[in-house]
Protein backbone atom coordinates (compact mmCIF):
# COMPACT_ATOMS: atom_id res chain seq x y z
CA UNK A 1 0.00 0.00 0.00
CA UNK A 2 1.51 3.26 -1.09
CA UNK A 3 2.28 5.61 1.76
CA UNK A 4 1.14 9.06 0.76
CA UNK A 5 3.39 11.53 2.62
CA UNK A 6 0.51 13.96 3.17
CA UNK A 7 -1.62 11.18 4.62
CA UNK A 8 1.31 10.19 6.79
CA UNK A 9 1.59 13.73 8.08
CA UNK A 10 -2.09 13.86 8.95
CA UNK A 11 -1.79 10.50 10.58
CA UNK A 12 1.02 11.60 12.86
CA UNK A 13 -0.78 14.83 13.68
CA UNK A 14 -3.74 12.70 14.69
CA UNK A 15 -1.54 10.49 16.84
CA UNK A 16 -0.02 13.56 18.43
CA UNK A 17 -3.45 14.98 19.16
CA UNK A 18 -4.51 11.72 20.81
CA UNK A 19 -1.35 11.58 22.87
CA UNK A 20 -1.79 15.18 23.96
CA UNK A 21 -5.36 14.64 25.11
CA UNK A 22 -4.32 11.56 27.05
CA UNK A 23 -1.38 13.21 28.70
CA UNK A 24 -2.56 16.73 29.17
CA UNK A 25 -4.27 16.37 32.55
CA UNK A 26 -1.12 14.76 33.93
CA UNK A 27 1.05 17.59 32.68
CA UNK A 28 -1.35 20.17 34.06
CA UNK A 29 -1.45 18.45 37.40
CA UNK A 30 2.30 18.13 37.53
CA UNK A 31 2.84 21.70 36.47
CA UNK A 32 0.31 23.10 38.92
CA UNK A 33 1.96 21.23 41.74
CA UNK A 34 4.98 23.43 41.21
CA UNK A 35 3.04 26.68 40.98
CA UNK A 36 2.25 29.19 43.67
CA UNK A 37 -1.40 29.80 44.51
CA UNK A 38 -1.33 33.15 42.74
CA UNK A 39 -0.04 31.54 39.55
CA UNK A 40 -2.61 28.79 39.63
CA UNK A 41 -5.63 31.09 39.96
CA UNK A 42 -4.25 33.53 37.41
CA UNK A 43 -6.46 34.30 34.47
CA UNK A 44 -5.62 33.83 31.66
CA UNK A 45 -3.89 30.65 32.80
CA UNK A 46 -0.14 30.84 33.06
CA UNK A 47 1.85 28.49 30.89
CA UNK A 48 5.18 29.83 31.97
CA UNK A 49 5.88 30.43 35.62
CA UNK A 50 8.48 30.33 38.30
CA UNK A 51 8.42 26.87 39.87
CA UNK A 52 8.25 26.35 43.61
CA UNK A 53 8.68 23.39 45.90
CA UNK A 54 6.52 24.92 48.60
CA UNK A 55 3.48 22.76 47.84
CA UNK A 56 5.37 19.54 48.24
CA UNK A 57 6.97 20.81 51.43
CA UNK A 58 3.57 21.62 52.80
CA UNK A 59 2.09 18.30 51.85
CA UNK A 60 4.86 16.06 53.02
CA UNK A 61 5.60 18.14 56.05
CA UNK A 62 2.13 18.62 57.42
CA UNK A 63 0.31 15.47 56.54
CA UNK A 64 1.27 12.03 57.74
CA UNK A 65 2.06 11.17 54.20
CA UNK A 66 4.48 8.43 54.94
CA UNK A 67 1.88 6.70 57.09
CA UNK A 68 -0.76 6.80 54.36
CA UNK A 69 1.76 5.55 51.84
CA UNK A 70 2.68 2.73 54.14
CA UNK A 71 -0.94 1.82 54.74
CA UNK A 72 -1.75 1.70 51.06
CA UNK A 73 1.29 -0.47 50.50
CA UNK A 74 0.57 -2.85 53.36
CA UNK A 75 -3.04 -3.28 52.34
CA UNK A 76 -2.18 -3.63 48.66
CA UNK A 77 0.59 -6.14 49.09
CA UNK A 78 -1.40 -8.22 51.56
CA UNK A 79 -4.47 -8.20 49.37
CA UNK A 80 -2.44 -9.30 46.36
CA UNK A 81 -0.57 -12.02 48.22
CA UNK A 82 -3.83 -13.23 49.71
CA UNK A 83 -5.42 -13.23 46.28
CA UNK A 84 -2.61 -15.35 44.90
CA UNK A 85 -2.84 -17.86 47.73
CA UNK A 86 -6.59 -18.19 47.37
CA UNK A 87 -6.83 -17.60 43.67
CA UNK A 88 -4.08 -19.59 42.03
CA UNK A 89 -5.40 -23.01 43.05
CA UNK A 90 -8.93 -21.86 42.26
CA UNK A 91 -7.97 -20.55 38.83
CA UNK A 92 -6.13 -23.77 38.08
CA UNK A 93 -9.12 -25.85 39.04
CA UNK A 94 -11.41 -23.73 36.87
CA UNK A 95 -9.04 -24.07 33.92
CA UNK A 96 -8.43 -27.79 34.16
CA UNK A 97 -11.85 -28.95 35.30
CA UNK A 98 -13.79 -26.50 33.20
CA UNK A 99 -15.75 -25.21 36.19
CA UNK A 100 -17.57 -22.44 34.37
CA UNK A 101 -20.18 -21.87 37.06
CA UNK A 102 -17.51 -21.49 39.66
CA UNK A 103 -15.77 -18.92 37.52
CA UNK A 104 -18.93 -16.94 37.18
CA UNK A 105 -19.58 -17.10 40.91
CA UNK A 106 -16.21 -15.62 41.73
CA UNK A 107 -16.45 -13.09 38.96
CA UNK A 108 -19.76 -11.84 40.27
CA UNK A 109 -17.72 -10.35 43.07
CA UNK A 110 -16.00 -8.24 40.42
CA UNK A 111 -19.26 -7.23 38.84
CA UNK A 112 -21.32 -6.31 41.84
CA UNK A 113 -21.42 -2.80 43.25
CA UNK A 114 -19.04 -2.59 46.16
CA UNK A 115 -21.44 -0.58 48.22
CA UNK A 116 -23.78 -3.57 48.47
CA UNK A 117 -21.16 -5.24 50.61
CA UNK A 118 -19.82 -2.14 52.23
CA UNK A 119 -22.82 -1.41 54.39
CA UNK A 120 -23.00 -4.87 55.96
CA UNK A 121 -19.20 -4.97 56.28
CA UNK A 122 -19.33 -1.68 58.13
CA UNK A 123 -21.91 -3.03 60.55
CA UNK A 124 -20.25 -6.41 61.01
CA UNK A 125 -16.70 -5.14 61.36
CA UNK A 126 -17.88 -2.58 63.93
CA UNK A 127 -19.49 -5.29 66.00
CA UNK A 128 -16.31 -7.34 65.79
CA UNK A 129 -14.25 -4.32 66.77
CA UNK A 130 -12.14 -4.73 63.69
CA UNK A 131 -12.68 -1.26 62.36
CA UNK A 132 -9.35 0.47 62.68
CA UNK A 133 -7.43 -2.65 61.74
CA UNK A 134 -5.68 -3.70 58.61
CA UNK A 135 -7.75 -6.90 58.71
CA UNK A 136 -10.95 -5.20 57.65
CA UNK A 137 -9.27 -3.28 54.87
CA UNK A 138 -7.30 -6.23 53.56
CA UNK A 139 -10.36 -8.48 53.53
CA UNK A 140 -12.34 -5.89 51.61
CA UNK A 141 -9.53 -5.32 49.13
CA UNK A 142 -9.24 -9.06 48.67
CA UNK A 143 -12.67 -8.94 47.12
CA UNK A 144 -11.14 -6.65 44.51
CA UNK A 145 -7.91 -8.51 43.91
CA UNK A 146 -9.15 -12.10 44.03
CA UNK A 147 -11.50 -11.91 41.03
CA UNK A 148 -8.76 -10.24 38.98
CA UNK A 149 -6.33 -13.02 39.81
CA UNK A 150 -8.87 -15.73 39.02
CA UNK A 151 -9.98 -14.04 35.79
CA UNK A 152 -6.46 -13.63 34.46
CA UNK A 153 -4.91 -16.83 35.72
CA UNK A 154 -7.72 -19.12 34.61
CA UNK A 155 -7.21 -17.88 31.04
CA UNK A 156 -3.50 -18.25 31.44
CA UNK A 157 -3.68 -21.79 32.76
CA UNK A 158 -6.07 -22.78 30.00
CA UNK A 159 -3.45 -21.82 27.47
CA UNK A 160 -0.85 -24.10 29.03
CA UNK A 161 -0.91 -27.51 27.27
CA UNK A 162 -2.00 -30.35 29.45
CA UNK A 163 0.86 -32.51 28.30
CA UNK A 164 3.09 -30.82 30.84
CA UNK A 165 1.22 -32.09 33.86
CA UNK A 166 0.28 -35.32 32.22
CA UNK A 167 3.87 -36.31 31.62
CA UNK A 168 4.67 -35.47 35.23
CA UNK A 169 1.71 -37.51 36.45
CA UNK A 170 2.70 -40.47 34.34
CA UNK A 171 5.98 -40.35 36.20
CA UNK A 172 4.08 -40.71 39.47
CA UNK A 173 3.45 -37.15 40.58
CA UNK A 174 0.04 -36.17 41.91
CA UNK A 175 -1.88 -33.47 40.14
CA UNK A 176 -1.30 -31.03 42.96
CA UNK A 177 2.40 -31.79 42.87
CA UNK A 178 2.43 -31.15 39.16
CA UNK A 179 0.66 -27.89 39.75
CA UNK A 180 3.16 -26.74 42.34
CA UNK A 181 6.39 -27.85 40.75
CA UNK A 182 5.67 -27.64 37.05
CA UNK A 183 2.84 -25.25 36.27
CA UNK A 184 3.47 -22.54 38.79
CA UNK A 185 7.12 -21.99 37.97
CA UNK A 186 6.27 -21.30 34.35
CA UNK A 187 3.38 -19.04 35.24
CA UNK A 188 5.60 -16.05 35.85
CA UNK A 189 4.19 -13.77 33.15
CA UNK A 190 0.60 -14.48 34.11
CA UNK A 191 1.31 -13.91 37.78
CA UNK A 192 3.09 -10.67 37.04
CA UNK A 193 0.08 -9.51 35.05
CA UNK A 194 -2.40 -10.47 37.71
CA UNK A 195 -0.29 -9.04 40.49
CA UNK A 196 0.38 -5.71 38.85
CA UNK A 197 -3.18 -5.14 37.79
CA UNK A 198 -4.78 -6.15 41.06
CA UNK A 199 -2.27 -4.12 43.05
CA UNK A 200 -3.11 -1.03 41.02
CA UNK A 201 -6.83 -1.57 41.59
CA UNK A 202 -6.27 -1.93 45.30
CA UNK A 203 -3.99 1.11 45.39
CA UNK A 204 -6.63 3.25 43.70
CA UNK A 205 -9.56 2.04 45.75
CA UNK A 206 -11.45 4.77 47.50
CA UNK A 207 -14.88 3.63 48.61
CA UNK A 208 -13.92 0.71 50.80
CA UNK A 209 -11.11 2.57 52.45
CA UNK A 210 -13.22 5.66 53.02
CA UNK A 211 -15.62 3.77 55.21
CA UNK A 212 -13.52 0.99 56.69
CA UNK A 213 -10.36 2.83 57.58
CA UNK A 214 -9.99 5.00 60.60
CA UNK A 215 -7.12 6.99 61.89
CA UNK A 216 -4.33 4.41 61.86
CA UNK A 217 -5.15 2.68 58.64
CA UNK A 218 -6.05 5.56 56.36
CA UNK A 219 -4.93 4.92 52.80
CA UNK A 220 -3.70 7.42 50.22
CA UNK A 221 -6.92 8.07 48.26
CA UNK A 222 -8.62 9.05 51.50
CA UNK A 223 -5.81 11.38 52.40
CA UNK A 224 -6.16 12.99 49.01
CA UNK A 225 -9.87 13.43 49.43
CA UNK A 226 -9.60 14.83 52.95
CA UNK A 227 -6.95 17.20 51.83
CA UNK A 228 -9.07 18.40 48.96
CA UNK A 229 -12.09 19.29 50.99
CA UNK A 230 -10.09 20.60 53.87
CA UNK A 231 -7.81 22.68 51.72
CA UNK A 232 -10.72 24.02 49.65
CA UNK A 233 -8.73 26.10 47.23
CA UNK A 234 -5.14 25.32 48.15
CA UNK A 235 -4.82 23.97 44.65
CA UNK A 236 -1.05 23.74 44.68
CA UNK A 237 -1.02 21.40 47.63
CA UNK A 238 -3.94 19.44 46.23
CA UNK A 239 -2.11 18.92 42.95
CA UNK A 240 1.03 17.87 44.78
CA UNK A 241 -0.99 15.27 46.65
CA UNK A 242 -2.54 14.05 43.41
CA UNK A 243 0.90 13.66 41.84
CA UNK A 244 2.16 11.79 44.88
CA UNK A 245 -0.63 9.29 44.87
CA UNK A 246 -0.54 8.58 41.15
CA UNK A 247 3.21 8.22 40.91
CA UNK A 248 3.55 4.61 42.12
CA UNK A 249 0.80 3.31 39.87
CA UNK A 250 2.24 5.16 36.91
CA UNK A 251 5.76 3.88 37.58
CA UNK A 252 4.49 0.33 37.94
CA UNK A 253 2.65 0.72 34.66
CA UNK A 254 5.72 1.98 32.87
CA UNK A 255 7.79 -0.95 34.10
CA UNK A 256 5.20 -3.64 33.52
CA UNK A 257 3.52 -2.04 30.54
CA UNK A 258 3.00 -5.08 28.42
CA UNK A 259 1.69 -7.13 31.32
CA UNK A 260 -0.85 -4.49 32.22
CA UNK A 261 -2.06 -4.29 28.65
CA UNK A 262 -2.36 -8.04 28.50
CA UNK A 263 -4.27 -8.13 31.75
CA UNK A 264 -6.75 -5.48 30.72
CA UNK A 265 -7.38 -6.93 27.27
CA UNK A 266 -7.14 -10.60 28.08
CA UNK A 267 -10.61 -11.08 29.37
CA UNK A 268 -12.06 -9.47 26.29
CA UNK A 269 -10.27 -11.85 24.04
CA UNK A 270 -11.61 -14.94 25.68
CA UNK A 271 -14.12 -16.79 23.58
Amino acid at each position, binding site marked *: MRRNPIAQLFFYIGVLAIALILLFPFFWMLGSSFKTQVDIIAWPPKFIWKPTLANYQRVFGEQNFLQYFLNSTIVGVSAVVGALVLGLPGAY*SIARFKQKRLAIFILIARL*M*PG*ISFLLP*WYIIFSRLHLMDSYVALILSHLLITLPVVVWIMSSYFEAIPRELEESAMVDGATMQRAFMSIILPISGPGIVTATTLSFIFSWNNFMFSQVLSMQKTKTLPIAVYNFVSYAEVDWGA*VMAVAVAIMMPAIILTMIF*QKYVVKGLTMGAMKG
Partner: protein
Amino acid sequence: MVKTGFMERHLRVIFPLPAVTFVVVMMLFPVLYTLFLSFTNWNLTSGMPISFVGLRSYVRVFSEPRFIAAIGRTFAFTGMAMALETILGLAIALVLNREFLGKGFVKLFLLLPLVATPVAVGIVFNLFFDPTIGLANWVLSTIGLPKSEWVSNAATVLPSLVLVDVWQWTPMITLICLAGLASLPADPFESARVDGATGPQILAFITLPMLAPTILTAMILRLIDALKTFDIIFAMTSGGPGYASETLNILGFKYSFEYFKMGQASVMLVSLFIIVLASSLGIMKMRARSEG
Protein backbone atom coordinates in the same frame (compact mmCIF):
# COMPACT_ATOMS: atom_id res chain seq x y z
CA MET B 1 -2.16 -47.50 37.58
CA VAL B 2 -1.11 -45.00 40.18
CA LYS B 3 -3.17 -44.93 43.35
CA THR B 4 -4.70 -41.48 43.61
CA GLY B 5 -4.74 -39.95 47.06
CA PHE B 6 -7.67 -38.24 48.80
CA MET B 7 -6.49 -34.80 47.85
CA GLU B 8 -5.95 -35.63 44.24
CA ARG B 9 -9.33 -37.28 43.85
CA HIS B 10 -11.06 -34.29 45.31
CA LEU B 11 -8.80 -31.69 43.79
CA ARG B 12 -11.63 -30.05 41.93
CA VAL B 13 -13.21 -29.27 45.26
CA ILE B 14 -10.19 -28.66 47.43
CA PHE B 15 -8.41 -26.27 45.12
CA PRO B 16 -11.25 -23.82 44.71
CA LEU B 17 -12.44 -24.20 48.28
CA PRO B 18 -10.46 -21.36 49.89
CA ALA B 19 -11.46 -18.89 47.18
CA VAL B 20 -15.09 -19.96 47.27
CA THR B 21 -15.24 -19.83 51.03
CA PHE B 22 -13.84 -16.36 50.98
CA VAL B 23 -16.34 -15.15 48.41
CA VAL B 24 -19.22 -16.76 50.28
CA VAL B 25 -18.20 -15.12 53.54
CA MET B 26 -17.30 -11.72 52.19
CA MET B 27 -19.88 -11.41 49.46
CA LEU B 28 -22.78 -13.79 49.76
CA PHE B 29 -23.49 -13.32 53.45
CA PRO B 30 -23.20 -9.54 53.32
CA VAL B 31 -25.56 -9.38 50.35
CA LEU B 32 -28.07 -11.58 52.16
CA TYR B 33 -27.67 -9.41 55.24
CA THR B 34 -28.35 -6.33 53.13
CA LEU B 35 -31.45 -8.02 51.81
CA PHE B 36 -32.57 -8.70 55.35
CA LEU B 37 -31.92 -5.09 56.36
CA SER B 38 -34.07 -3.88 53.49
CA PHE B 39 -37.06 -5.33 55.29
CA THR B 40 -36.37 -3.31 58.43
CA ASN B 41 -36.67 0.33 59.31
CA TRP B 42 -33.32 0.54 60.99
CA ASN B 43 -32.06 4.06 61.49
CA LEU B 44 -28.75 4.04 63.26
CA THR B 45 -29.00 7.44 64.80
CA SER B 46 -32.60 7.70 65.80
CA GLY B 47 -31.74 5.88 68.99
CA MET B 48 -34.74 3.68 68.38
CA PRO B 49 -34.40 -0.11 68.14
CA ILE B 50 -34.45 -1.96 64.85
CA SER B 51 -37.75 -3.50 63.86
CA PHE B 52 -39.04 -5.62 61.02
CA VAL B 53 -41.45 -3.70 58.83
CA GLY B 54 -41.92 -5.92 55.82
CA LEU B 55 -42.12 -3.91 52.66
CA ARG B 56 -42.55 -0.49 54.22
CA SER B 57 -38.99 0.60 53.50
CA TYR B 58 -39.46 -0.49 49.90
CA VAL B 59 -42.61 1.59 49.66
CA ARG B 60 -40.88 4.59 51.17
CA VAL B 61 -37.93 4.32 48.84
CA PHE B 62 -39.80 3.61 45.63
CA SER B 63 -42.19 6.48 46.22
CA GLU B 64 -39.30 8.82 46.85
CA PRO B 65 -38.81 10.91 43.69
CA ARG B 66 -35.16 11.34 44.54
CA PHE B 67 -34.69 7.58 44.19
CA ILE B 68 -36.42 7.33 40.83
CA ALA B 69 -34.45 10.32 39.59
CA ALA B 70 -31.23 8.67 40.73
CA ILE B 71 -31.99 5.57 38.69
CA GLY B 72 -32.67 7.77 35.68
CA ARG B 73 -29.42 9.61 36.16
CA THR B 74 -27.51 6.36 36.54
CA PHE B 75 -28.76 5.16 33.18
CA ALA B 76 -28.26 8.55 31.57
CA PHE B 77 -24.68 8.74 32.73
CA THR B 78 -23.97 5.15 31.77
CA GLY B 79 -25.61 5.50 28.38
CA MET B 80 -23.74 8.67 27.46
CA ALA B 81 -20.43 7.37 28.74
CA MET B 82 -20.70 4.03 27.01
CA ALA B 83 -21.80 5.47 23.68
CA LEU B 84 -18.98 7.99 23.59
CA GLU B 85 -16.37 5.58 24.87
CA THR B 86 -17.29 2.82 22.43
CA ILE B 87 -17.38 5.05 19.38
CA LEU B 88 -14.27 7.02 20.28
CA GLY B 89 -12.41 3.98 21.50
CA LEU B 90 -13.12 2.02 18.35
CA ALA B 91 -12.29 4.97 16.11
CA ILE B 92 -8.96 5.55 17.80
CA ALA B 93 -8.15 1.84 17.63
CA LEU B 94 -8.86 1.79 13.90
CA VAL B 95 -6.65 4.81 13.38
CA LEU B 96 -3.80 3.39 15.44
CA ASN B 97 -4.04 -0.09 13.92
CA ARG B 98 -0.80 -0.02 11.94
CA GLU B 99 2.88 -0.02 12.58
CA PHE B 100 4.23 3.43 13.24
CA LEU B 101 7.01 5.23 14.95
CA GLY B 102 6.34 5.54 18.66
CA LYS B 103 3.53 3.01 18.82
CA GLY B 104 4.94 1.62 22.03
CA PHE B 105 4.83 5.02 23.61
CA VAL B 106 1.28 5.65 22.50
CA LYS B 107 0.23 2.37 24.03
CA LEU B 108 1.81 3.48 27.28
CA PHE B 109 0.00 6.80 27.11
CA LEU B 110 -3.23 4.93 26.59
CA LEU B 111 -2.62 3.08 29.82
CA LEU B 112 -2.02 6.12 31.96
CA PRO B 113 -5.58 7.37 32.37
CA LEU B 114 -6.63 3.81 33.22
CA VAL B 115 -4.27 3.48 36.13
CA ALA B 116 -4.70 7.01 37.42
CA THR B 117 -6.40 7.12 40.79
CA PRO B 118 -10.01 8.12 40.05
CA VAL B 119 -10.25 10.33 43.11
CA ALA B 120 -7.16 12.25 42.07
CA VAL B 121 -8.42 12.46 38.49
CA GLY B 122 -11.63 13.99 39.79
CA ILE B 123 -9.71 16.59 41.73
CA VAL B 124 -7.57 17.58 38.77
CA PHE B 125 -10.63 17.92 36.58
CA ASN B 126 -12.32 20.03 39.25
CA LEU B 127 -9.57 22.58 38.77
CA PHE B 128 -9.89 22.17 35.03
CA PHE B 129 -13.62 22.80 35.16
CA ASP B 130 -13.53 25.71 37.59
CA PRO B 131 -15.73 28.33 35.95
CA THR B 132 -13.50 31.23 36.96
CA ILE B 133 -9.90 30.02 36.78
CA GLY B 134 -10.16 26.69 35.01
CA LEU B 135 -8.35 25.77 31.82
CA ALA B 136 -11.48 24.35 30.22
CA ASN B 137 -13.17 27.73 30.06
CA TRP B 138 -9.99 29.29 28.82
CA VAL B 139 -9.95 26.84 25.93
CA LEU B 140 -13.58 27.58 25.18
CA SER B 141 -13.12 31.33 25.27
CA THR B 142 -10.03 31.15 23.09
CA ILE B 143 -11.88 29.34 20.34
CA GLY B 144 -14.78 31.74 20.68
CA LEU B 145 -17.28 29.51 22.47
CA PRO B 146 -19.22 30.70 25.51
CA LYS B 147 -17.94 29.67 28.90
CA SER B 148 -19.64 26.86 30.74
CA GLU B 149 -20.27 26.27 34.41
CA TRP B 150 -19.33 22.61 33.94
CA VAL B 151 -19.90 20.81 37.22
CA SER B 152 -21.28 23.82 39.07
CA ASN B 153 -24.48 23.87 37.06
CA ALA B 154 -27.21 21.26 37.34
CA ALA B 155 -27.76 21.21 33.59
CA THR B 156 -24.16 20.62 32.60
CA VAL B 157 -22.90 18.54 35.48
CA LEU B 158 -23.71 15.07 34.13
CA PRO B 159 -22.17 15.70 30.69
CA SER B 160 -19.11 17.17 32.39
CA LEU B 161 -18.75 14.07 34.53
CA VAL B 162 -19.23 11.91 31.45
CA LEU B 163 -16.37 13.81 29.85
CA VAL B 164 -14.10 12.86 32.71
CA ASP B 165 -15.18 9.24 32.50
CA VAL B 166 -14.61 9.28 28.75
CA TRP B 167 -11.09 10.59 29.22
CA GLN B 168 -10.31 7.92 31.76
CA TRP B 169 -11.89 4.84 30.18
CA THR B 170 -11.91 5.27 26.40
CA PRO B 171 -8.32 3.98 26.30
CA MET B 172 -9.51 0.65 27.65
CA ILE B 173 -11.89 0.19 24.73
CA THR B 174 -9.09 1.23 22.41
CA LEU B 175 -6.63 -1.24 23.87
CA ILE B 176 -9.11 -4.08 23.75
CA CYS B 177 -10.03 -3.28 20.14
CA LEU B 178 -6.38 -3.01 19.18
CA ALA B 179 -5.74 -6.43 20.64
CA GLY B 180 -8.78 -7.73 18.84
CA LEU B 181 -7.74 -6.19 15.53
CA ALA B 182 -4.29 -7.68 15.88
CA SER B 183 -5.73 -11.12 16.23
CA LEU B 184 -7.95 -10.96 13.16
CA PRO B 185 -6.88 -13.37 10.40
CA ALA B 186 -5.27 -11.72 7.37
CA ASP B 187 -6.95 -13.77 4.64
CA PRO B 188 -10.36 -12.10 4.45
CA PHE B 189 -8.64 -8.73 4.10
CA GLU B 190 -6.34 -9.99 1.39
CA SER B 191 -9.13 -11.49 -0.69
CA ALA B 192 -11.24 -8.36 -0.24
CA ARG B 193 -8.43 -6.19 -1.49
CA VAL B 194 -7.86 -8.50 -4.43
CA ASP B 195 -11.56 -8.17 -5.22
CA GLY B 196 -11.13 -4.40 -5.29
CA ALA B 197 -13.02 -3.49 -2.12
CA THR B 198 -12.52 0.07 -0.89
CA GLY B 199 -11.35 1.03 2.59
CA PRO B 200 -14.78 1.91 3.94
CA GLN B 201 -16.24 -1.27 2.46
CA ILE B 202 -13.60 -3.40 4.12
CA LEU B 203 -14.26 -1.61 7.35
CA ALA B 204 -18.00 -2.06 7.22
CA PHE B 205 -18.24 -5.61 5.92
CA ILE B 206 -15.16 -7.32 7.23
CA THR B 207 -13.46 -5.52 10.06
CA LEU B 208 -16.43 -4.54 12.12
CA PRO B 209 -18.36 -7.79 11.90
CA MET B 210 -15.28 -9.81 12.80
CA LEU B 211 -14.50 -7.46 15.64
CA ALA B 212 -18.05 -7.45 16.96
CA PRO B 213 -17.60 -10.01 19.76
CA THR B 214 -14.58 -8.14 21.05
CA ILE B 215 -16.39 -4.81 20.91
CA LEU B 216 -19.34 -6.29 22.74
CA THR B 217 -17.13 -7.73 25.44
CA ALA B 218 -15.48 -4.38 25.89
CA MET B 219 -18.92 -2.82 26.16
CA ILE B 220 -19.96 -5.31 28.81
CA LEU B 221 -16.95 -4.52 30.93
CA ARG B 222 -17.55 -0.82 30.56
CA LEU B 223 -21.28 -1.06 31.13
CA ILE B 224 -20.85 -2.79 34.45
CA ASP B 225 -18.25 -0.38 35.70
CA ALA B 226 -20.07 2.68 34.39
CA LEU B 227 -23.25 1.73 36.23
CA LYS B 228 -21.19 1.59 39.40
CA THR B 229 -19.25 4.81 38.87
CA PHE B 230 -18.61 6.29 42.26
CA ASP B 231 -15.17 7.76 42.82
CA ILE B 232 -15.17 10.63 40.34
CA ILE B 233 -18.73 11.68 41.13
CA PHE B 234 -18.11 11.55 44.86
CA ALA B 235 -14.83 13.44 44.61
CA MET B 236 -16.06 16.06 42.16
CA THR B 237 -19.63 16.88 43.07
CA SER B 238 -20.80 14.50 45.77
CA GLY B 239 -24.08 14.26 43.90
CA GLY B 240 -24.53 18.00 43.48
CA PRO B 241 -25.37 20.69 42.55
CA GLY B 242 -28.50 19.89 44.51
CA TYR B 243 -29.06 16.31 43.43
CA ALA B 244 -28.22 16.80 39.77
CA SER B 245 -25.41 14.25 39.66
CA GLU B 246 -26.78 11.88 42.27
CA THR B 247 -26.63 8.41 40.81
CA LEU B 248 -28.01 5.39 42.62
CA ASN B 249 -24.61 4.49 43.98
CA ILE B 250 -24.05 7.95 45.42
CA LEU B 251 -27.55 8.11 46.85
CA GLY B 252 -27.11 4.71 48.47
CA PHE B 253 -23.87 5.87 50.01
CA LYS B 254 -25.51 9.01 51.36
CA TYR B 255 -28.38 7.11 52.90
CA SER B 256 -25.94 4.63 54.44
CA PHE B 257 -23.22 6.83 55.80
CA GLU B 258 -24.69 10.30 56.07
CA TYR B 259 -28.30 9.73 57.04
CA PHE B 260 -27.60 6.34 58.57
CA LYS B 261 -30.98 5.10 57.38
CA MET B 262 -29.76 1.56 57.01
CA GLY B 263 -33.14 0.09 56.21
CA GLN B 264 -33.90 2.36 53.27
CA ALA B 265 -30.28 2.38 52.15
CA SER B 266 -30.43 -1.39 51.92
CA VAL B 267 -33.41 -1.15 49.60
CA MET B 268 -31.37 1.10 47.32
CA LEU B 269 -28.36 -1.19 47.42
CA VAL B 270 -30.47 -4.22 46.60
CA SER B 271 -31.95 -2.28 43.68
CA LEU B 272 -28.53 -1.32 42.37
CA PHE B 273 -27.36 -4.89 42.72
CA ILE B 274 -30.30 -6.14 40.68
CA ILE B 275 -29.86 -3.49 38.01
CA VAL B 276 -26.19 -4.36 37.53
CA LEU B 277 -26.89 -8.08 37.56
CA ALA B 278 -29.71 -7.80 35.05
CA SER B 279 -27.73 -5.53 32.75
CA SER B 280 -24.69 -7.81 32.81
CA LEU B 281 -26.69 -10.94 32.14
CA GLY B 282 -28.62 -9.11 29.44
CA ILE B 283 -25.58 -8.06 27.47
CA MET B 284 -23.85 -11.38 28.03
CA LYS B 285 -26.83 -13.10 26.45
CA MET B 286 -26.65 -10.65 23.56
CA ARG B 287 -23.00 -11.45 23.06
CA ALA B 288 -23.55 -15.19 23.21
CA ARG B 289 -26.18 -14.83 20.55
CA SER B 290 -23.92 -12.72 18.34
CA GLU B 291 -21.27 -15.41 18.37
CA GLY B 292 -23.97 -17.70 17.04
